[in-house]
C-alpha cells in the first residue's frame, strides 16, 4: 500500500466542465475587472485623502479579491491510498503431456509437435506482452518446469489427462498478484469426468484469462459413447417440476441416430431420437420431469447409438416440503422484503432470517426464522446454514472486507447469492470491489457513466424538491404514468424460462415479473448467463438489451444479480389470490441455492460411470461427522470403502474399487435421517479410459472455456490483446480523501478580515 498526495484546481459550478485554461481565464478576467474597479475607486476620484492611504485601501481590496479568486479556483488536496502496483503478471504455459498428445499419426506426427510449431510462431508476442513466462506440464498431475523444452520432455505420459484439476492446481500455486493469463497446450481431453464449472469460477474469481493452443494431428479416433455428466436434484418437492440435465459424448465414424430415453420407476419411458453427425459430439440434453407424491423415485436414463448403449440410474427423494433457509440482508430501507416475506412465509419449508442495516451501527432482525444470527457473518462458516443469501439495497460501503470474503467463500463452497440493486448509484458503488469479482455483470464506473446523465438526474431531483417546497401539493394524479410496470423479457434459452412455467400450463401462461426502476450495468461477464432483459432499452455502447437478471457459476455455487427495483410494485399489482409472486421467488431461490447443501449429505461428482477394477475416488459433502458408506454391486456383492477427511471440514474422500462390471449403489449415512444415494455403472477399464482412444481435440470445449474467461483459442496468430502493450496491471485505488484547501477558518477570516479592515478604514478616513 502506498499513498499519493497532489493538489488540483477543481473549478465548480459553471466552470466544472471548462478546461483549466478557460476557467483560469474567466477567473483572472473577473479579478482584473475587480482590480480595475478598485483602482478607479481609489485613484481616479478626487478628494483630500492622502496617496499612501489610497494605496493601503487598494492593497487591502486587492488582497481580498485575490483571496476570493483563489478560493473560487477551489484548490483541493487529493490523497489517494493505492495498492502497490502489482508485479508484472507472468504468463503460465501449461503443457499437456498425456498419451493423447504423444501418440503419432500416420505421418509420425504428434499433437505436441504440432503445438510446438505454433508456439514458436507466437512465442515472441507472449514474451513481449507478459515479460515473464512460467512453464509447467501435466498428465495425471501438474509439475513445474524451467522452460518449454523441459516441460515438453518431462517424463509424464499417462493414460489420464487431468486437465481441469491441473489448471486448478496451477491457479492455486499462482504467484502473488496472479497470472496475466494461462496458455494451455492441449487437445482439450479431460479424463477425470469432472465438470469445468468449478474451474471456471476459479478463473473468473482470479480474473485470469485462459488461452488454448490446440494440439492437432490426423489420429483416427475409436468409437465412443459415454454419459459424461448428469445433473439433477437429490430432493424435490411434491407436485413440482425438476430438470434432468445430461451431457453425452459420442464419437461416430458415420452419421447416425442416437436414441435417448428416460423413465421414472416403472412408468412409460420418454424417448427422443437425435441425429448425430460423424465425428466427436458433446451433446447436452435436458428433460423436465414431474414429481408426484412423497417417496423415493428411481430414474433410468439410457442412450443408444445402434452399436453401444449406456445407462445411468438415479434416485430422487420427493418430499412434502423442501427446506430452504434464506438470509435476507438489507441495507437502505426498501419495501422489497415486506412483500417477499409476505408471500414466502406462506410457503412451508422456507425460513427467512432478515437483517436490516438501515443506518450506521443499527441492525434490526426480522423474518420467519427465529435463529441467532445477529449480523452478516464475517466467516463463511456462519453462512453455511443458509441455502441462499440475498443482499438487497446494500451499498458496498456497508460490507466489511471480511464480510465480502465470507460471502465469496460461501458461494465458492456451493451457496447461492442474489444481489438486488436498487439504482445505478448502488451499482456504480460495486465497481472495483472484491465482491464484484464473483458477480455476473460488469458495473458501470463513474467515469463510464455519462456525467450528463448524472447531472440531469441531479437537476431533476432538485427541481422536484424545489417544486415540492414551493407548492406543497400532491403528486399529479397522472404521475403514475411514470411508474408503468414493465415486463421482464425472458430469453427462450434462459433457465428462468423453464423455472417460471406453471406445471401443466403452456408457455404463454408463464409467470412474467414486472418492474418500474432498474439499475444500469455495463455488460454481462464472459461466462455469465442472462436470465432476463429489459423489454425495450439497450445499452448505447454495446447495442445489447439492458440486463435485468444475470447469473454465473462461482466455484460450486451460483451468483445472480437482479438490477430492477425489488419488485414490490409487481407484488401489489397482483390479485391477492395469485401465487405468481411466491412461485417466482420460490423457484428462483431454490434454483440459486440448489448446490448449497453443505448440511445435506451428497456426492459431489456428476459422473455416472466408473472403471471396473480401478480405485474410484468420490467426494461426499455435508457432514461434520464421519459418514458410513456402503458399496453394493451386482448380485449383492459388497466392496470395501475407505473414508478419509476431505479438503474442508464438511467433505470426505470416499475410495472404493468396483471389482465386477455392472450397476453399483453407494449409500451414505450420517446422523439422523441424513442419507445420500448414488448409482454407478462400472464398465471395462480399458474402454473407459479414453485418453489414448484417439479422440479428436475438443475444440468446442476449449473455445467455450477460453471465451468464458476472456481468453481465446489460438489458431495461427497471437491473440489481439497481446499486441496492446505490456500486460502491466495499473495500481488499484483503495481510498481517496479530498480536502478543500480554501476551507480553513483562518484563511477565510484573513480574506474577509482584509475587507472588513478596508471598510473600517474607509469610514475612519471619511471615504464613504
Amino acid at each position: 500500500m502506498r499513498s499519493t498526495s497532489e493538489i488540483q484546481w477543481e473549478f465548480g459550478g459553471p466552470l466544472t466542465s471548462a478546461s483549466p485554461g478557460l476557467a483560469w481565464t474567466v477567473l483572472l478576467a473577473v479579478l482584473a475587472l475587480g482590480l480595475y474597479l478598485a483602482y478607479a475607486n481609489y485613484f481616479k476620484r478626487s478628494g483630500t485623502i492622502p496617496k499612501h492611504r489610497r494605496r493601503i485601501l487598494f492593497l487591502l481590496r486587492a488582497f481580498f479579491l485575490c483571496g476570493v479568486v483563489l478560493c473560487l479556483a477551489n484548490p483541493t488536496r487529493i490523497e489517494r491510498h493505492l495498492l502497490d502496483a502489482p508485479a508484472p503478471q507472468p504468463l503460465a504455459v501449461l503443457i499437456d503431456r498425456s498419451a493423447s498428445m504423444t501418440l503419432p499419426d500416420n505421418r509420425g506426427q504428434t499433437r505436441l509437435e504440432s503445438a510446438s510449431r505454433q508456439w514458436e510462431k507466437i512465442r515472441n508476442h507472449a514474451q513481449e506482452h507478459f515479460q515473464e513466462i512460467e512453464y509447467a506440464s501435466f498428465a495425471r498431475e501438474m509439475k513445474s518446469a524451467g522452460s518449454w523444452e523441459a516441460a515438453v520432455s518431462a517424463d509424464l505420459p499417462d493414460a489420464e489427462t487431468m486437465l481441469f484439476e491441473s489448471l486448478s492446481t496451477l491457479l492455486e500455486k499462482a504467484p502473488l498478484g496472479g497470472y496475466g493469463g494461462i496458455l494451455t497446450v492441449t487437445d482439450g481431453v479431460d479424463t477425470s469426468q469432472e465438470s469445468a464449472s468449478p474451474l471456471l469460477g476459479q478463473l473468473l474469481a482470479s480474473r485470469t484469462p485462459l488461452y488454448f493452443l490446440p494440439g492437432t494431428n490426423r489420429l483416427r479416433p475409436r468409437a465412443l459413447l459415454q454419459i459424461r455428466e448428469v445433473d439433477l436434484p437429490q430432493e424435490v418437492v411434491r407436485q413440482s417440476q425438476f430438470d434432468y440435465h445430461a451431457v453425452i459424448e459420442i464419437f461416430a465414424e458415420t452419421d447416425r441416430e442416437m436414441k435417448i430415453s428416460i423413465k421414472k420407476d416403472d412408468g412409460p419411458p420418454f424417448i427422443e431420437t437425435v441425429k448425430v453427425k460423424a465425428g466427436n459430439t458433446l451433446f447436452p440434453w435436458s428433460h423436465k420431469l414431474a414429481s408426484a407424491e412423497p417417496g423415493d423415485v428411481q430414474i433410468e436414463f439410457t442412450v443408444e447409438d445402434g452399436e453401444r448403449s449406456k445407462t445411468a440410474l438415479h434416485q430422487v427423494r420427493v418430499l412434502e416440503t423442501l427446506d430452504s433457509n434464506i438470509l435476507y440482508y438489507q441495507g437502505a430501507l426498501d419495501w422489497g422484503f415486506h412483500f417477499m416475506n409476505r408471500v414466502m412465509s406462506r410457503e412451508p419449508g422456507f425460513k427467512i432470517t432478515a437483517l436490516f442495516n438501515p443506518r450506521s451501527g443499527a441492525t434490526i432482525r426480522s423474518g420467519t426464522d427465529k435463529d441467532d444470527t445477529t449480523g452478516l457473518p464475517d466467516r463463511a462458516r456462519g453462512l453455511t446454514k443458509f441455502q441462499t443469501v440475498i443482499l438487497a439495497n446494500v451499498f458496498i460501503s456497508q460490507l466489511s472486507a471480511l464480510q465480502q470474503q465470507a460471502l465469496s467463500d460461501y458461494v465458492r463452497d456451493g451457496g447461492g447469492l442474489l444481489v438486488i440493486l436498487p439504482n445505478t448509484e448502488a451499482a456504480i458503488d460495486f465497481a472495483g470491489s472484491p465482491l464484484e469479482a464473483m458477480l455476473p455483470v460488469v458495473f458501470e464506473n463513474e467515469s463510464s457513466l455519462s456525467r450528463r446523465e448524472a447531472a440531469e438526474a441531479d437537476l431533476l431531483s432538485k427541481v422536484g424538491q424545489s417544486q415540492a417546497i414551493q407548492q406543497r401539493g400532491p403528486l399529479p394524479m397522472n404521475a403514475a404514468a411514470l411508474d408503468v410496470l414493465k415486463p421482464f423479457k425472458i430469453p427462450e434459452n434462459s433457465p428462468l424460462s423453464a423455472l417460471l412455467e406453471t406445471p401443466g400450463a403452456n408457455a404463454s401462461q408463464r409467470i412474467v415479473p414486472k418492474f418500474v426502476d432498474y439499475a444500469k450495468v455495463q455488460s454481462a461477464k464472459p461466462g455469465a448467463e442472462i436470465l432476463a432483459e429489459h423489454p425495450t432499452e439497450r445499452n448505447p455502447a454495446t447495442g445489447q438489451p439492458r440486463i435485468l437478471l444475470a447469473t454465473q457459476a462461482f466455484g460450486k455455487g451460483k451468483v445472480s444479480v437482479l438490477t430492477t427495483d425489488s419488485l414490490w410494485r409487481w407484488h401489489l399489482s397482483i390479485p391477492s389470490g395469485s401465487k405468481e409472486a411466491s412461485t417466482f421467488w420460490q423457484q428462483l431461490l431454490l434454483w440459486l441455492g440448489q448446490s448449497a447443501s453443505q448440511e445435506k449429505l451428497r456426492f459431489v461428482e456428476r459422473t455416472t460411470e466408473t472403471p471396473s477394477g480401478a480405485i474410484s475416488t468420490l467426494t461426499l459433502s455435508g457432514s461434520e461427522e464421519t459418514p458410513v458408506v456402503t458399496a453394493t454391486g451386482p448380485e449383492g456383492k459388497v466392496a470395501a470403502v475407505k473414508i478419509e477427511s476431505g479438503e474442508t471440514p464438511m467433505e470426505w474422500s470416499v475410495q472404493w474399487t468396483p471389482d465386477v462390471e455392472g450397476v453399483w449403489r453407494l449409500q451414505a449415512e450420517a446422523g439422523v435421517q441424513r442419507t445420500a444415494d448414488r448409482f454407478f455403472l462400472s464398465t471395462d477399464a480399458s474402454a473407459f479410459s479414453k485418453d489414448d482412444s484417439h479422440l479428436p481435440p475438443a475444440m468446442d470445449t476449449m473455445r467455450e472455456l477460453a471465451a468464458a474467461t476472456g481468453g481465446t483459442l489460438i489458431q495461427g496468430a497471437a491473440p489481439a490483446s497481446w499486441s496492446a502493450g505490456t500486460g502491466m496491471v495499473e495500481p488499484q485505488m483503495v481510498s481517496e480523501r479530498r480536502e478543500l484547501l480554501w476551507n480553513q477558518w483562518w484563511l477565510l477570516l484573513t480574506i474577509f478580515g482584509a475587507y472588513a479592515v478596508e471598510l473600517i478604514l474607509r469610514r475612519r478616513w471619511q471615504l464613504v
Partner: protein
Amino acid sequence: MKTKTSLVSFFSPFLLCGLFMVITNTQAAEPPRGGKVQWARLMTNYPHWARHTETEFFLLEYIRDNTTLDIDLRWAIADINRMESLSRYPFVYAEGIQTVTNPVAQANLREYLLRGGFLLIDACINVAVNPEPDVFLAGQLLRMKEILPEATITPIPPQHEIFKTYFELDRRPQSYMNNVYDPRWEKHPMYAVELDGRVVSIISLAALKCGWSFDVNPPELRINSMKMMINIYAFSLIH
C-alpha cells in the same frame, strides 16, 4: 459617475461572494438510498381526508433526512375507489375510514391489505373534526370489521417493538387540541389490525399529523411525532 463607480466597487466583493457561493455549491453527499417510493393519502368520501396536507412536506423532509428511504417529497393521492391507484403505494395514510361504506371502496381496501399494503389511520385532534375520540375509534373499528372480518384488533402495549424499531421512544407521543391535556385522548393506545399474524393496519389516536404540523407543547413533541411516524413506517416495512 463617481458615485456609480464607488457603488460598484463597494458591492463588487458581495457579487464575488455570490459567485463564490454558486461555484462552490458543493452539496453534502446524499446517503445511499433504497428504491423510490411515494407517500400517499387515502382519498375517501370523508371530507377531511386531505386535512393539513400542506404540512406533509415537513414529515417527508424529516424522513429523507433521517432515513435511507428514497421517499418523494411530494405526497400522492391513493384513491380508494380505484384499485390501480391504491396499488401504487405500499403505505397509505388515512384521516379515518368511518365513512367508507361503499362496497367497491371497501372491497378495494380489503384487496389492498390482502396484497400486502399497509394502512395507518391517524385521528385529527381538532374538536371540529373529531369532537369525541371514542366515537372516532368506534367508527374505525366498525368499518375495519366490515372490511376485514377475519382480522383481530388489539391494543399495542407500551413495550411493543414499534416504539423502538427505528428510534428509541420512551413513550407514545400524543398531541392535544391547543396543547391542553385531555385524558379522553390520552387513554387510548394505538391499535394493531392483524391478519394471519401480520399487522396490516394501525389505528392511532395519537394525532401524529397534528404533532408534526403545528407548534406543539412540549416542543420535542413535534420531532417525536415524526419519529413515531418513522417507527410505524419502518415496522410495516420490515415485517
